[in-house]
Structure formats: C-alpha cells, structure tokens
C-alpha cells in the first residue's frame, strides 16, 4: 500500500509515495516509516539534482548538488514500488525523485548501506554520510 506518488523527477512533496511496511529491526534499532509521516519535497526537486551510482556488488551512492533540508537517518528501498525513500531523524520522508529502474535492482537489493554525498553545486565534496539501507522486497520476485 502506498500513497501516491509518482516519484518522478522534479516531484513535489504532495506527490511523493511513501512506502509502508512492517518494522524491520536491525542492531536493536526499529526501522519503520510512520503512516502519517510528513512528506518533504523529493531530493530531485527545485534546482536540486541527484545521481544514483550502484555496482553489482551492492555498493551504492546517491550524490546531490544542493543541501537537504534535514539530516537523513536511514533509507528504504521498496523493490515493488521501485522507490528509494529517505527518512529524516524527525521521521519525515522524502523520495529520491527518480524511479529505480530494473537494471539497478540487483545491486541495490544487495546493499546494506547507501552513501549520501552532498557535492556543493555538483562540484566539490560537501558532506558524506553512510546511511543504513533497508530493502523491502515484499512479494516481488526478481
């Protein structure tokens, strides 16, 4: 079940999908997105662009060229919805703003972390943050 979303490029807060699922507990921490989590504009929105880089060994990185409004706590990859959802420390959510197409599924499904890299104006390293990646496969057979 998901709210609509059309997590397409340049999407806005109101059209961002929010995947919902059962809590996943890793290392004592409970990862679950609240059903009424406030939704922020997607990472790809306004004049902020993003780049997703994944390799077959499950190493993944999202780079973006403008700062995010809030710090990200963890990231969820919903295979069925083909969405990456970023969850802030305050429990708010933001989509990537790009659909995760099939060629990226295998590598991303293996990943346990996704490194978030802020590149100031797309050019110089602004910050790095290895975020926990929760993969929700649900009923999808790859």
């Amino acid at each position, binding site marked *: 079940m998901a709210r609509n979303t059309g997590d*397409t490029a340049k999407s806005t807060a109101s059209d961002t999908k929010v995947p919902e699922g059962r809590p996943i507990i890793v290392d004592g921490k409970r990862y679950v997105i609240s059903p009424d989590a406030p939704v922020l504009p997607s990472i790809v929105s306004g004049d902020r662009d993003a780049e997703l*880089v994944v*390799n077959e060994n499950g190493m993944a990185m999202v780079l973006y060229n403008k700062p995010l409004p809030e710090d990200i706590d963890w990231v969820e990859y919903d295979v069925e919805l083909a969405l990456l959802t970023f969850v802030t*420390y305050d429990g708010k959510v933001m989509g990537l703003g790009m659909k995760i197409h099939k060629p990226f599924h295998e590598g991303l499904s293996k990943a346990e972390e996704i490194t978030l890299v802020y590149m100031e104006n797309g050019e110089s390293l602004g910050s790095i943050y290895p975020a926990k990646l929760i993969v929700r496969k649900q009923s999808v057979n790859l």
Partner: protein
Amino acid sequence: MGLSSADIEERLAKYKVNGQEQGHLIAAKKTGQFYLAYNDSANVDVKNFLNSLGQVDNGVIDAVVAQVNIDPREFVQKLEKDLKADASAANNLKTIIENNPAEAARIIQAYDGTNFKALMASVKGSSSAPATPPPPAAAPPAAVSPPAQGPAGSTAPPPSSGAGTVPAPATSKPHPTGGTTTAGSGAHATSSPPATKAGGSGTSSSGSGAGSSQQMSGLFEALKTATNSEIRGLFTGKDALGKNGHVMQFATAFAREAVKTYGISQADADGFVKRIEGDPTLQKNIADNLANNPDFIREMASLDGQNIDPRIRGLAKKKLQELMHKPEKLADPEYLKKASAMAQDAKRITQMDDWEQRIGQGLDKMGLGSFKGPLHQIFEWLKSFVMKISEGGDLKSMFSGPDGAGNMFGNLMKGLGLGGGAGSQGAPSYGGPQCQRYDHTSGQPYGSPQFFGGLQAFGHFGGGHNRHGGFGVGLHLSGRI
C-alpha cells in the same frame, strides 16, 4: 521577508500537532533572516518577535532552529509566555541578538522555558535585561554557570536559588556541577573532583531557576578541564552510582547535548538514559570504564556540536545515534578510545578549511601524523569505497538531468585524487573501466558503456593499473597508508 526559495532551503523546521500543521520556521543563513509562520493566534508575540528581527547572526539562527527542532510547540509557547510576562524583555533580547549574537545564542541554547528571567539577568549590566548590549567578553550567563544543585545523591540543599538570586559575577568562571555550591574546601575531592577544581572560587550561587539544563551544562564545563585523578574520583567514589549518581548525571548531560546540538530525538535520548538507569551492572561497568578513560570524558565535554564542521556532522550524529541505541558501548574500553580519537580529529577537521583539497592531494601528503584516528579511517574508507564502486563490474548510474550533464561522481573522484572529470566527447568519466548510464525516465541505457582514462587518472598512485585503467585498492592503501 524577501526570502527566495534558494535561501530557505538552508534551514527549515516544520511541525504538526495532531496532524495539523501548526507552523513552520524558516531561517535563511545566507541572508540572516527569520520567518516564523504560526497558526496559533495565541502565540503571536513570538512570531512577531522573530519576524521583526533584522539580519541575524548564524549562531543565533542555529540556536533557535535547534530549539525549535527539539520541541517547537514547547519552545514557542513558553517563550510566548515569558515575552508576555515582561513587556521589555523582547526589546532587550532583540538588542542582545543584534549586538552580542554569541551571548544571544548562548541564552537561546540554555533556555528551557523556566529560566528566561535568570538568563536575561545574567547578562552583565542588567537587572532584568540589558539596556545596552554587553561587551563580547561578558561573563557566561547563568545557563552555563554551575549547577545550583548539589551532587547527585547528595543531601545538600540547593543553593539560594530562588527568584531574584544574584547571578554569578561577570568575572566568575562557571563552576562545576556535581559538587556542592560551596565547593572549594576539597571536602568532596573524591566524589566530586570537578567541583573542587572549578568551584574553587567559592561562588555560591549560579542564578535563579537553575534547573537540570544548567546543571548539565555546568557538569560539562567542569569536565572539560578536569584532571585524570578528578575524573577517576568522580566515577569511583561513593556517589558514582545510583539514580542520581555521577554516571547518571553524565549520561543525562550527554543525552541532552546529543538532542540539543545534534538533533537526536528526545525519545532516543530518554531511552538511553533509562536503559542505564535501570541496569545497575551496566552502570557499574560504565563507571569503571569512564574512570579509566578521562580523555573520552574531556573530549565529549568539550566537543562543540554547534560548530562542528558540517561535512562530518552527519557522521558524528550517526555515531551518537548508535550510542543512544546501545549504551553498552560506554562500557567498552575500545569504543571509548576510538570515540576520543574521533572527537580529536573532528576538532582538527573543523579547524581546517581545506581538507578536501588535502585529501585530494593524498592522505600521505597531509602527513600521517595529521589523522591517525577513526576519521583518517573514514577518509580512507571513502576513498577506497569510491575506488571499489568504480572498479567493480557492472557499474551503473542514473542522473536526474539529461545525458551528458551532471558528473557529480566524476567530480567526487577528481576531488579525492582518483581521476574523474570529463571523458571523451563530453561523456562523464568515472575513472573506472566502464560505467553504463541510464535515462532516469525510461530506464533505458544511453549508448554503449563509457570507457574512461583510468590509466591517466591513477598513474600518480604509482602504477598497478591495467589496460582498462583498473587498479588495486590494496596496492594504493598498502603503499601509502
């Protein structure tokens, strides 16, 4: 307010109560402006006050945003009440914000809804609030003064802390917490060493309304300069354990700072404190470990979360978050040693404004003595991660703009001294053997995988490349680090 969308992206705090958006605070650091939208007409004074400010120092903006992020409703409503109670308070606070932003930031940080009068009174030259701005060298406000309360577990009554109590003299140093307010006798040297040291001035009061926040700030102030033996005494003495013991005081102060300066959730912080409070064995193990790791205590007490370099702030926050979920880490000697080293590196990093260039030149050129702690490992990790991800087979990327545009990963590699930059025909170069780019809307690949000039990119690392420009991570790391 004339804020553009680019400005307001820098700081944004929104909040809802029962599903209804109550308001939001926009603070634009570029222009130093505030804008508070608040739906509750009962709290117009705070809104008018914040919105009336002119260009505001970034330190003040950070302080307000931090408070709003902890609990916006609480902050707004309490400040509203205080501003209403004292008609001149808003003007006085505004004057301080405009003329002494550091002092203003400190007041805002220390404000807990009960201590407004005391904080304002603590500003030099003021009875209730300054008519003129205090000089930059003004004494710390009562908020960072010593705790008004005796050490945990002590039966000593709090100092004369009723309303109207004279705040600490402008020249007095904050005195510690954990100790009696008449410290200086050395009577509690074993159980309350910092009090003995910092409280030597004999200052007996710390401002009215001193609550737990003041106590904790005072504890951290005292611990910054506590000696090894003082810290050892603090965590091995008879007052070390128990609900109000020094371990719990430290844990509570630590959790509070984590919330206040890093935005860790209050629920996580509360869980951390309760977990330690409810497990006497864990508490004892933590006490033993803290007693043997004074560097950790001092580093944690002096690490300035407000000023930490934003490039590593997220990492620091993540480490704190992990600790909040697993307080057992405090009982692990290795963890404390690593955390101490990381805090030291964080301070060095914060003092450097060109570290990415230094990284780009190679860690070896920075001098191995510069970073030997976990942050060195982080850079090493980032570098090797980027190398591995680019070297690994079947590298794929997807950019939100048109093909040929956007080369952030290439620029990152370049910044790390790993090549990158533009490839042939304007295609992005990732320095690795190949990368397939995909159209983000259709999911279809663009042309053929790009081959890049990895040979040149990695040449300066001393060889080991093959015809694809591939390289051995181990070769570089073992050869240089």
